[in-house]
């Protein structure tokens, strides 16, 4: 199968931060595994959500997909063409755009919005589509007044800055937009506006989106499929509706249960997930989730679970996924 963007068995190692002096010694320097045998496919016109805690490798995967950090193993391909060297990635950046996490910080404080909007054209040597009107057209496409082009980034509100980064991502008419935490730090009403803008663009322009977030409510409402990452490995993926209705991986279940409830009648008395995500320097043996897993058994500490395709479009990496499946179908699980 070939999607718009395929991530095939990708791993990414980095030198451990303490390796500075050890690197001078003979033998290999310690490495830390950030991403491990990760596979993911984004379809044409699809909205895919990627969730997981801080430190799960979500942003690193996005950067690797754009060629901003090198992978150590595996294959990345865009529109069926494998991406190997710098030149391939330079080309990919015209077909896929990254929206950075901090919208204000990703804009230069010293240049006006209009000048920054046309940068993608200048960098890639593409003539401006609408001549002098280009910035105005781009701003209007994301629902902003064209006069905003004459402002500096610090004069924008959080929601406006986010719209400008959407406009800039769309400059070269990409097929895929990778949005890293597109609504972090926004008020709920503004968050809804940005999400509506993104879903609107998707249906108008046939765009695909990879939405990276730890906000499950966002994923639940706007994505078609969701992938759950834990410590650089895929824990589970599948159609959003099904994963939320019947999560098979205990980590997915814990994440869903951890969401704070605005309805005081739905308060959870106990804690869904204890402890913190382990450091990549001390990756647990076996299944990396076993140190926090509510259903862990001895086998989990020694044996790595395999990727298990429960149905053609649902994957889960857990030794006991089959049992969980029967359990969740048999009764009410989670909240």
């Amino acid at each position: 199968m070939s999607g718009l963007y395929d991530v095939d068995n990708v791993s990414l190692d980095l030198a451990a931060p303490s390796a500075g002096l050890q690197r001078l010694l003979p033998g290999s320097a310690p490495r830390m595994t950030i991403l491990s045998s990760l596979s993911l496919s984004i379809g044409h016109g699809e909205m895919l959500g990627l969730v997981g805690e801080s430190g799960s490798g979500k942003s690193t995967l996005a950067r690797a997909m754009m060629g901003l950090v090198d992978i150590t193993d595996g294959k990345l391909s865009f529109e069926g063409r494998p991406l190997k060297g710098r030149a391939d990635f330079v080309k990919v950046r015209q077909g896929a755009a990254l929206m950075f996490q901090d919208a204000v910080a990703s804009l230069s404080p010293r240049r006006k919005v209009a000048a920054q909007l046309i940068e993608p054209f200048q960098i890639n040597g593409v003539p401006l589509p609408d001549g002098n009107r280009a910035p105005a057209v781009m701003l209007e496409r994301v629902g902003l007044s064209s006069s905003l082009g004459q402002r500096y980034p610090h004069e924008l509100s959080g929601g406006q800055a986010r719209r400008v980064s959407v406009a800039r991502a769309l400059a070269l008419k990409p097929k895929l937009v990778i949005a890293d935490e597109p609504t972090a730090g926004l008020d709920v009403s503004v968050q809804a506006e940005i999400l509506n803008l993104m879903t609107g663009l998707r249906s108008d322009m046939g765009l695909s989106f990879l939405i990276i977030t730890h906000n499950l409510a966002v994923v639940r409402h706007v994505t078609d499929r969701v992938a759950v990452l834990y410590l650089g490995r895929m824990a589970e993926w599948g159609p959003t509706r099904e994963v939320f209705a019947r999560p098979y991986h205990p980590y997915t279940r814990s994440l869903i249960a951890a969401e704070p409830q605005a309805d005081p009648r739905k308060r959870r008395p106990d804690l869904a997930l204890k402890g913190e995500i382990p450091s990549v320097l001390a990756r647990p043996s076996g299944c990396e989730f076993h140190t926090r897993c509510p259903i862990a058994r001895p086998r989990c500490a020694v044996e790595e679970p395999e990727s298990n395709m429960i149905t053609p479009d649902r994957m889960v990496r857990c030794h006991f996924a089959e049992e969980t499946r029967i359990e969740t179908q048999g009764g009410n699980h989670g909240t």
Partner: protein
Amino acid sequence: MSEALLKVDDLSISYASEEGPVQALRHATLEARAGEAIGIVGESGCGKSTLASALITLLAGNARVTSGSVQFGGRDILSVSEEEKRKLRGRHIAMIFQDPMTSFNPVLTIGEQLVDFQDQREGLSKPEKRQQAALMLKRVGISDPVRCLDRHVHELSGGMRQRAAIAAALLMAPQVLVADEPTTALDVTMEAQIIHLLRELRRDYNGAVVIVTHHLGVVGELCDRVYVMYAGEVVEEGSTDDVYHNPRHPYTQALIACDPANLHEQTPVLPTIPGRLPDLVNPPRGCSFAARCPRVHERCRSEGPDYVEVGPRHRARCHEARS
């Protein structure tokens, strides 16, 4: 129910600006009782941070109190001397800030700072204060408190940092604890853990807790009562249950509606609140939400609504609150 520990009465605060005074807080009234957790919720620019800084007497230099008071211990704490304000802070009223990374000094260890924070505690030696600090760290769920004392803030994870900040705030057993966006910088699992911790601490803490947040989920999980703010005003107040299940102000209704966490079915288009906040240099003559309100009447544009009682300890600032 016990007497109010802290009472905000008709408080208005404005900030000097080039265009004229920005009326960031207008006629806010609020009370926090012992053993009660209250939530102050609203979006950017609603005045919740101004209100929080007034509670702990840490108003910005260009802020001016134009009406009302904050009553604590039988006096208006906004009009006492700087020296007395300093004695109140930390000892009687303590605050947990949004970003624990910046609320700790980066060049001192956690232990040195937790000892310093007990400056006003008399009759304790330094080792005893350190002992107290370790006990408090243990209570907030830090498994190796003695080691944590010797660490600097950058060596702690986000969740640990927020725990340490909570320990710092509780160290002097304050009567009022103000938490400004205590979970905003954390991801969902750490947020759940901090909520759980604050709830546990409440069990043996007799003071009042004030949670300032833009996140309705935090209010739902933690607070007994909630104050909803919009454009510098408290527009609705009531028990968390009443306000969530029976919101009477159109802004509260809109705020609950546009949070995707409250929608059960997947929707292609999320509800929003069209329009924008009014200019607070020249606040509207009538209701401040009139320009964005779906149920607006002629009267709303000319006449600012008073509070309308809609139930026991539940009221909303809307002409239509009863209908």
